[in-house]
């Protein structure tokens, strides 16, 4: 047993927690602003910049806002789909729907994001579809980013909710109906409270994936930037690894807080 456990535990300890520790340590170093090389001197400057310079606060709140919005959009879209799959569809149709939900995950992230870039462009598919209603494509920007992220992470919300609803006994629906509950009341007072942990479980995925994303926003985000872009620009372009590491601790801290809150709902049992 111990032998079997050792490699994964080492992996978890060294590769995962070790990387997080290294990240945190790096964020306490400085950088030579000319050559871009790391100077191994302990300093809190990176965190001071992160908190004192307004633009980083703006970007952090924007990122949190988008992640929350994506999560809400996905939850609203996923719930009826999952409900239909779990409780209405025939077993055969249910299997087909599960495959249909999983199918987009087989295609490359980049292909999907660039497809959206094409659709959202000037005179693209969305502009063409919206034209009869006197509307236009939202163009590249934060709205487009939210839309694309919501599309990309939707399966991660549908599947936990579907799993949660499937575990819900049909007898509960009947009991509610026997007691005079109409469909809406049953949904509101029976289904939603019981499936809430599943929604929270799904939100862990959509929220954390949105928080860390920097590719979709580069492709469809116009001039917008999120925390991931700040990390990318500092690590990939400006070569300021210590500051990038400091920025990268923000999503880690937010996710830890979020997970701690989620744990109280019991949603982690649903993962």
């Amino acid at each position, binding site marked *: *047993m*111990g032998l079997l*456990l*050792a490699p994964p*535990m*080492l992996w*978890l*300890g*060294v590769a995962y*927690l*070790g990387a997080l*520790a*290294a990240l945190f*340590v*790096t964020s306490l170093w400085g*950088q*030579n*602003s*000319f*050559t*871009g*090389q*790391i*100077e*191994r001197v302990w300093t809190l400057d990176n965190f001071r*910049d992160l908190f004192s*310079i307004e*633009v*980083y606060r*703006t*970007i952090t709140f924007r990122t949190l806002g988008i992640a929350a919005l994506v999560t809400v959009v996905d939850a609203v879209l996923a719930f009826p789909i999952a409900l239909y799959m779990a409780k209405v569809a025939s077993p055969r149709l249910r299997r087909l729907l599960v495959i249909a939900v999983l199918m987009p995950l087989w295609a490359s992230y980049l292909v999907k994001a660039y497809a959206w*870039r*094409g659709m959202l*462009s*000037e*005179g*693209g598919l969305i502009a063409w579809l919206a034209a009869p209603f006197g509307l236009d494509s939202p*163009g*590249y920007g934060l709205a487009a980013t939210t839309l694309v992220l919501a599309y990309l992470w939707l399966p991660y919300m549908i599947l936990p909710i579907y799993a949660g609803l499937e575990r819900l006994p049909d007898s509960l629906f009947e009991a509610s109906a026997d007691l005079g509950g109409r469909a809406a009341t049953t949904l509101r007072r029976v289904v939603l409270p019981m499936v809430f942990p599943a929604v929270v479980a799904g939100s862990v995925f959509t929220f954390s994936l949105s928080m860390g994303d920097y590719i979709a926003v580069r492709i469809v*985000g*116009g*001039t917008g*930037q999120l925390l991931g872009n*700040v990390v990318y*620009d*500092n690590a*990939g*372009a*400006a*070569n*300021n690894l210590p500051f990038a590491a400091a920025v990268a601790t923000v999503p880690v801290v937010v996710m830890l807080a979020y997970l701690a809150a989620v744990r109280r709902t019991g949603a982690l049992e649903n993962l």
Partner: protein
Amino acid sequence: MRTTTTQRLTAAAGACLLALVAGCGTSSDDETTTDADGAAAFTPPDVPLQKSLGEPEGRVSILAWPGYAEDGSTDKSVDWVTPFEEQSGCQADVKYFGTSDEAVKLMGTGEYDVVSASGDASLRLIASGDAAPVNTDLLENYGDIESFLKDRAWNSVEDQMYGVPHGWGANLLMYNTDVVKPAPTSWSAVFDDASVYAGKVTAYDSPIYIADAALYLMKHRPELGIEDPYALDEDQLAAAVDLLKKQNEHVSEYWSDYLKEVQAFSTGDSVIGTTWEVIAQVAQGEDVPVEAVLPEEGSTGWSDTWMIGADAANPNCGYAWMDYITSPKAQAAVAEYFGEAPANTRACELTSDAKFCDAYHATDADYADQIHYWTTPIEQCLDGRSDVRCTDYGDWTQAWTEVKG
């Protein structure tokens, strides 16, 4: 039983973690003697000069600006890498980069043998010890390089060349000829008058783009006293940032990937903005109605240098590439494709357009001096002021994040 095993494992993992952290914290193999004093003040780390050429290693990895090492994959008729491979016996792996920062970062990995570095990257590479001095005696074509490109501040230190000049040119203003009328003649089209094409303006996504705004202010707001767009004190930087923030309201998107800019112009999401000649060429090749012009204010630009990595795995093939790419034939091909003045002016006899070198002022040292070449901004003002502290590249990076908001 199970708990004890787990506990032991956790302890072991914890110990590894501690060792790792300690290892990170104390390692001081970083022996650079450089300080942030920049051009005049720094002593480059001692990297040995290659004395002679040996057998080619059979391969070379090239880090280049897009369009500098074409192997026929973009356009079948544009290929000067294959002849090099046949001639030298070195298989070339080419990686393109989009910004100088990316080049510096990638060279730091030590995985690349040669790099085409602009002035805002070359000094950083020398100072960090990532680039080796170049023994120009080993390069047959070095003698034909224009003398005004040799031993310059961005490619040499104390009369030691750290690379071979490749070519130079100006950043241009590209516009969609169907939409933008009349044709723009000034950078004001993307700064003070950007609102005319609100939501359709594009700009280069790098802190070095701040210099474009500074150059514009230098011509239009003389009271700011900007002498050199790379030497900005805090007030001057703040003025440039203000200008860029106003521009930001009208920007559709920033580009650093040249193909993304081509795509944005072909769909019409961008109609005006800064560009390189090569991008205009690719867009025109795809029948996008664009023109690229040099506005009246002049422009920022680049003077590029092929440098060899200090840890190059294939130095002999690296030298073979540096010699080949500065030969008249290769220079003619690159210069015409990329749209820049070749460093080796013997290339001028070989260009398909006989007047090419005249159009790009390839032999005109005075013209070359009017372009404001990309240079890394440092604390010591590059314009010679000694009474103020200038903003350095770190400040510019920070400012660029604020511009994008």
